[in-house]
C-alpha cells in the first residue's frame, strides 16, 4: 500500500493540505478529550475517598466519645446515650458465615453443573436464570422473606431442627414470629448464591479441556476430574468469588432488617432475633434521636466500610496474584 491516501481523499492534491486552523483545532480537541476523560477517571477515585471521609467525619463524635472500645462493647441503649457495636458485629459475623457456609457449596455446585453437566441448550437458560436471582431488589426479597419465608421457617423448619438437633445450642429456643438470625441468614444465602455461582462458572469454563480429558483418559470419574483437576486449578479464584459473596452478605441492610427481628442481645441460638451492622443502620437511622446516636450509626458504617473494603481488596488481590490463567500449565 502506498503511504499516500487515494486522490479522492486528498482532493486537490498538494494544494489542499490540512489547514493550520484545523490542525490547531485538532490539537485542542485531542487535549480536551483526553482532559475530560482523565477528569472522569479522577472523579471516580475522588468519590471513594470522599465517601470514606464523609463516613469517618460523621462518626467522629462517637469515635471521640467511645474510642476503640465501641467495637466490642455490647451495650446499645440510645435512651441512655450508651453505644457499642459488639452485638451487631456478632450478628454480622454469624449471618454472613452461615450464608457463606450454606450458599458457597451450593453456588459452586451450580457452577459445576453449568459447565460440566448441563446440556448446552439448558445451560443458556439456567445460567441467566440464576443470575436473575441477583436482580431481585433486596426490599422485595425481604418482603417475601417477611410474609412467606418467615412463617414457613417458624412453623416448619425451626421446630424440625429444634426437635432433631436441639441438643446443639445454635438450634435452641425459638422466637414466636419467625423473624430470626436464621431467617436472615437464609435470605442472605439466596443473595450470595448467584454471585458466587456466576463467577465460579466462568472460572470452571477457563480450565483447559486437555487437562480434564487427560484425567478422564487415565480413568478418573467425573467427580475425580472435578476433585483432581477443576477445583485445584481454580481454587484461588473460587476463594475470591466467595469473598465477593461475603462482601454482599456483610453489606445487605434492607432485606436483613426486614426479617432479623431487631434484637440487641448476643444469643447462641440462631432462632432468636438479632441485628447486623448494616441492618442496624437501616432500622435506626431514620428515627435517630440524638447527634450521638447518629454518630454511633456512622461508626457502624465505618466498621462496615473497613470490613467491606478489606474483603473486596483481598478478593481482588487473590484474583490477581493467583490468577487461574497463571496456574494453568501452558
Amino acid at each position: 500500500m502506498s503511504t499516500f491516501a487515494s486522490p479522492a481523499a486528498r482532493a486537490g492534491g498538494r494544494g489542499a493540505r490540512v489547514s493550520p486552523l484545523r490542525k490547531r483545532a485538532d490539537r485542542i480537541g485531542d487535549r480536551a478529550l483526553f482532559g475530560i476523560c482523565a477528569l472522569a477517571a479522577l472523579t471516580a477515585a475522588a468519590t471513594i475517598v470522599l465517601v470514606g471521609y464523609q463516613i469517618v467525619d460523621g462518626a467522629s463524635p462517637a469515635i471521640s466519645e467511645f474510642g476503640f472500645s465501641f467495637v466490642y462493647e455490647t451495650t446499645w441503649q440510645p435512651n441512655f446515650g450508651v453505644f457499642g457495636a459488639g452485638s451487631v458485629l456478632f450478628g454480622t459475623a454469624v449471618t454472613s458465615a452461615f450464608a457463606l457456609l450454606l450458599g458457597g457449596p451450593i453456588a459452586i455446585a451450580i457452577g459445576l453443573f453449568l459447565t460440566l453437566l448441563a446440556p448446552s441448550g439448558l445451560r443458556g437458560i439456567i445460567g441467566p436464570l440464576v443470575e436473575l436471582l441477583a436482580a431481585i431488589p433486596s426490599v422485595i426479597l425481604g418482603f417475601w422473606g417477611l410474609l412467606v419465608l418467615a412463617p414457613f421457617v417458624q412453623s416448619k423448619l425451626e421446630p424440625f431442627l429444634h426437635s432433631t438437633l436441639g441438643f446443639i445450642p445454635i438450634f435452641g429456643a425459638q422466637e414466636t414470629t419467625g423473624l430470626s438470625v436464621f431467617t436472615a441468614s437464609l435470605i442472605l444465602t439466596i443473595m450470595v448464591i448467584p454471585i458466587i455461582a456466576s463467577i465460579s462458572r466462568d472460572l470452571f469454563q477457563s480450565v483447559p479441556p486437555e487437562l480434564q480429558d487427560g484425567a478422564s483418559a487415565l480413568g478418573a470419574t467425573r467427580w475425580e476430574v472435578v476433585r483432581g483437576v477443576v477445583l485445584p486449578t481454580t481454587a484461588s479464584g473460587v476463594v475470591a468469588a466467595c469473598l465477593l459473596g461475603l462482601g454482599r452478605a456483610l453489606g445487605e441492610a434492607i432485606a436483613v432488617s426486614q426479617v432479623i427481628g431487631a434484637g440487641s442481645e448476643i444469643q447462641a441460638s440462631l432462632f432468636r432475633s438479632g441485628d447486623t451492622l448494616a441492618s442496624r443502620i437501616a432500622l435506626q437511622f431514620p428515627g435517630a434521636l440524638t447527634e450521638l446516636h447518629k454518630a454511633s450509626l456512622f461508626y457502624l458504617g465505618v466498621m462496615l466500610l473497613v470490613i467491606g473494603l478489606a474483603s473486596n481488596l483481598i478478593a481482588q488481590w487473590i484474583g490477581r496474584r493467583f490468577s487461574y490463567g497463571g496456574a494453568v500449565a501452558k
Partner: protein
Amino acid sequence: MSAGAVPDPAAPLTPSGNLRRRQLVSRGAEIAATAAAVAAIAVLAIVIYTVVSRGAKAIDLDFIFTGYPTGVGPMLLGTIVIALVATLMAMPLGVLIALFLTEYAGSRAAAPLRLTLDLLNGLPSIILGLFVFALLVNHKKQSGFAGAVALAIIELPLIARGSQEVLLLVPAALREASDALGVARWRSVLTVVLPTALGGIVTATVLAVARAAGETAPLILATPTFDPKTFSVNPFEALPNVPVWIYKLSEEGNPEGFTEAWGLSLLLIAFILFASLGARALLARSKRKLSS
C-alpha cells in the same frame, strides 16, 4: 445401563468393588450439583410466583395513575425521576471513564482505575446512603437528588465496565481506516468509535438502571418521608419512590398495605426483569455483530 440386570459377555468389565464405589460417588456428586441448580431455580420461581399471584390482584389503572390511598402513581413517577437524574449523571461519566481506559490509559493508569471501579461496585449501598446523608441531607433537607447521587455511584462502575467491554470490541480496522485518512484522534473517537459502540453502551446503561431502580438502602436515608398523595417531579424536594414505599408498607404490618406492596413489587420486578433480560439479549447481539 445394560451392565446391571442383563447378563452379558462383557461381565468382567462390569464395575465392581473400588471402581463401583468411585462411580457411585461420582454419580452422587452429579445428582447433588443438579439438585443445587434446581433449588436455585425453584427459589426464583417461588419468589416470582408469589409476587405475581399476590400482586396481580392489586394492579389496575387507578393503582398506576392515582395517588395514595387508591394508587401508587406518585411513587412510580418519583422513582422514574430519581433513576433518570442518576443516569444523567452516571452515564456520561461512565462512558468517559471507559474511553479513558480503552483509548488513553497505559497499564499503569488502568490497573488502579479498574480497582477503583471494582471497589465502588463493592461498596454496600447503605454506606452510600450514609454518604449522601452526610453530604447533602444533614443540616439541609432530604431530597430525591441526594438519592439520585447515591444511585449514580451504584450505576457508575456498571456503566463504565459495560461500555469498556463494548469499546474493546470496536474493530481495529475502523480506527486504522480513520487514522489513515488523517483524522485526529478525538474526531475518530467521537465520530467512529463511539457511534459503533453506542448500542452496547445503551444496553449496559439499561442494565445499570435495572440494578439501581430497586435499591432501597440509600433512599431511606436520602428521602425517607414524603407525601404519597401528590405527584412531584422536583428532585430537590423529598420525592415519593417505590422502594421506600414497599419498605414502609412491609414494616407497618397492615394487610391492605401488604396487598399494595405486592402490587408495587410486581411492577418493580416486571420492569427489572424485562429490562435486564432485554438488555442482555441486545448486548449479546451487538457483541456478536461487533466481533464478527
